[in-house]
């Protein structure tokens, strides 16, 4: 028989006003097994906790029931209190008589009666409680970063700085991500490549960082502290070790008509390519969709010119496994496809471009060598119209419901750069709202208007019609209360951004949750912004929501800090409330194994004593307490009733039911 102490809290007047605490403690004192019962003004206070500890020693209590606020509030507090006084923390039960009693009832009699019943249920449960000890599971001191953009690079650098091994998995042939395609960065206008490429080199040279480029995550097993990840290294048909990145093959390859995706298809590259001069790793890759040798077996020019002998047409996708303690998702974003917005004539005229394409047209390493020229005829444009919020802030069926956040600023940057480089151009920006929250952001936008004379017009473009080499733009000027007709040379669309298309399948592999827009959800939108609700998975950059570069870097470092905090630990404390099979009752049917969402249950052959001194070998279930999260699905699936959940056992819950119904 347990020796139980009951402690009823007043919570000031929060409980005492609608529950007769004195009566509750008196009535509960009559319950079997209760050897001590009292009430106090603030049980969670220092004095209250000391009272509990003293009573445990004085009356030799083996179990404690605290009638107070929700266990979500102070269960941990009281468990710690009791642990210090020498009893197992899992011998403490909370009767929730505040949130679920005193606060929802006005009548004191009703409240008191319900509090007594809730107290009885808790006492009935404590009678069946057993001391539980939390197990531990070791932490693999290595992190995986999925995505090698600026977010992934920053996270990896920070983790490596703390002395842990980091692997970056990047699906493209080079790390760097979207930032490599950007020309200048707002609001300081420093060149993106100048600040990014040193970081890429740092990552490549850091001996703690290993970069798997042109690779993808194939599958993820395991749990926080001990993930088992299979990585697929896609065949690039070039030996990464032998290739020196001299680039001779990329000049000699006869297949010249391959859209250059790095320049968003604005120009062509060869079938064997290095995305750009500063690529990391600087290794050529063969595009299997275009390579004549791989398609028809006739060519082999690259292999003939390669002095290092790095070309290998027989290369296959490689798979390998690696253990990680933590996984950081940094899959980033993409501009949306513009098929739905045909009023802007994006598919009809090459002179209608997205903002990212415009970045390439402005970039010195881009298809035009940094001179702004119209893609259609290579002429210098004189009138440029920028359209904001294309596909952002839309009704669900018309586009993305959210604000893409970065467009206002990069459009201001584009407009400013146009006017700076080519003062003879007329630049119009059509906006719904100009959103410039950020350090020096609004000043930047005002400079575009005041110093550079960009025409900002409140209104929207209704349609763009290509006609006689011009783009006829029809737009509204809401403040001028007129409709504008502009003959433009170029139209630049600030397309909404969306999460990368690989994010959704990755989330399934990681069992991490996503919102309806395919952005990863945080464990808490305000207080835990860089963690996924799934333990051990962290979020970095635009995979969590639209972000500009400073924010991305900030979040990347924050995610790194969280990862370091995890990897610093040698062991993780597991949830002690895990499933436990009764081996004598288990018939080895595998029902529990099938329902377990964590794969925590395995089957082993075990020897049992049979009749007449024989031994029997039977197949029985075994639960890995480090993996089990304690949901209890298996306990109900078990047909023989062998599986039970520690801390919430069948008997305990039934005792509660009995106490409530009696």
């Amino acid at each position, binding site marked *: 028989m347990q020796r139980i102490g009951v402690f009823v809290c007043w919570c000031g007047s929060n409980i005492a006003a609608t529950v007769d605490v004195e009566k509750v403690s008196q009535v509960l004192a009559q319950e079997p097994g209760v050897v001590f019962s009292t009430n106090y003004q603030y049980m969670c206070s220092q004095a209250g906790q000391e009272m509990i500890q003293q009573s445990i020693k004085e009356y030799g209590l083996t179990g404690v029931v605290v009638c107070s606020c929700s266990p979500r509030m102070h269960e941990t507090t009281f468990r710690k209190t009791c642990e210090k006084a020498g009893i197992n923390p899992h011998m403490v039960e909370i009767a929730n008589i505040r949130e679920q009693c005193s606060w929802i009832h006005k009548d004191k009699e009703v409240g008191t009666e319900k509090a007594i019943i809730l107290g009885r249920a808790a006492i009935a449960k404590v009678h069946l409680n057993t001391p539980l000890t939390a197990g531990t599971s070791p932490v693999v001191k290595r992190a995986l970063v999925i995505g090698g953009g600026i977010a992934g690079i920053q996270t990896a650098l920070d983790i490596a700085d703390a002395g842990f091994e980091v692997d970056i998995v990047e699906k493209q042939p080079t790390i760097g991500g979207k930032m490599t395609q950007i020309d200048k960065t707002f609001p300081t206008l420093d060149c993106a490549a100048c600040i990014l490429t040193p970081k890429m080199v740092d990552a490549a040279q850091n001996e703690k960082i290993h970069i798997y480029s042109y690779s993808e995550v194939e599958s993820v097993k395991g749990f926080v502290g001990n993930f088992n990840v299979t990585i697929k290294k896609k065949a690039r048909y070039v030996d990464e070790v032998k290739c020196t990145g001299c680039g001779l093959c990329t000049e000699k390859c006869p297949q010249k008509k391959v859209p250059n995706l790095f320049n968003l298809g604005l120009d062509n590259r060869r079938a064997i390519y290095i995305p750009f001069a500063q690529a990391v790793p600087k290794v050529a890759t063969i595009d299997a969709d275009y390579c004549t040798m791989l398609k028809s077996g006739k060519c082999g020019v690259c292999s003939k010119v390669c002095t290092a002998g790095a070309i290998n047409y027989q290369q296959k996708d490689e798979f390998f496994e690696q253990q990680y303690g933590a996984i950081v998702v940094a899959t980033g974003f993409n501009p949306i496809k513009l098929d739905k917005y045909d*009023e802007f004539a994006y598919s009809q005229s090459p002179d209608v471009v997205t903002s990212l394409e415009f970045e390439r047209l402005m970039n010195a390493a881009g298809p035009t060598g940094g001179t702004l020229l119209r893609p259609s005829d290579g002429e210098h444009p004189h009138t440029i119209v920028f359209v904001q*919020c294309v596909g952002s*802030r839309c009704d669900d*069926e018309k586009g993305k419901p959210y604000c893409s956040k970065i467009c206002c600023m990069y459009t201001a940057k584009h407009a400013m750069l146009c006017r700076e480089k080519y003062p003879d151009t007329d630049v119009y920006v059509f906006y*719904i709202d100009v959103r410039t929250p950020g350090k020096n952001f609004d000043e930047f936008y005002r400079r575009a208007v005041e110093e550079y004379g960009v025409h900002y017009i409140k209104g929207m473009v*209704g349609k763009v019609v290509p006609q006689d080499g011009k783009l006829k733009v029809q*737009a*509204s000027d*809401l403040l001028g209360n007129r*409709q504008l007709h502009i003959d433009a040379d170029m139209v630049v669309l600030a397309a909404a951004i969306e999460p990368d298309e690989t994010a959704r399948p990755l989330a399934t592999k990681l069992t991490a949750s996503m919102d309806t827009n395919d952005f990863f959800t945080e464990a808490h939108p305000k207080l835990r912004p860089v963690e996924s609700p799934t333990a051990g998975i962290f979020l970095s950059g635009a995979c969590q929501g639209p972000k500009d570069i400073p924010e991305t870097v900030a979040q990347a470092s924050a995610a790194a800090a969280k990862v370091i905090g995890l990897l610093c630990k040698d062991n993780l404390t597991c949830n002690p409330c895990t499933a436990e099979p009764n081996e004598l009752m288990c018939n080895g049917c595998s029902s529990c194994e099938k329902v377990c969402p964590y794969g925590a249950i395995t089957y082993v052959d075990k020897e049992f004593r049979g009749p007449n001194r024989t031994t029997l070998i039977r197949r029985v279930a075994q639960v890995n307490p480090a993996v089990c999260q304690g949901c209890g699905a298996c306990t109900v699936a078990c047909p023989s009733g062998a599986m039970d959940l520690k801390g919430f056992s069948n008997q305990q819950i039934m005792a509660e039911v009995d106490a409530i119904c009696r």
Partner: protein
Amino acid sequence: MVDFVKRISGVNPRKCMKCGKCSASCPAYDEMEYHPHQFVDMVETGRLEELMNSKGIYTCLSCFACVERCPRSVEPAKLIEAVRTAVVRQQDKTHLKPDAIPALLDDELPQQAITSAFRKYRK
């Protein structure tokens, strides 16, 4: 009356984010006294009287470009249609009287246009 217009059009003017894409798309913009985005605002703020007295509601072509383009699916043309219905349903407010037709006829006007105008502008 505002509720009536909202009900028969099925439009919720509060969804409007005042981007002006409707007015940018409107082919009859210069013919109108109030423009599509203003229609939405006037219904929302209850200035229906002015709208009902405006000639602009008859200049709307009902081409539904604004409905098609509106990013928030506010559908201004449906509002205009509803306001027009509210007006022509009143006593003596028929906009197009049969007697007025011969004077308006010209050879290039298709028969169908007259029929549809008739449907649109009278009770």
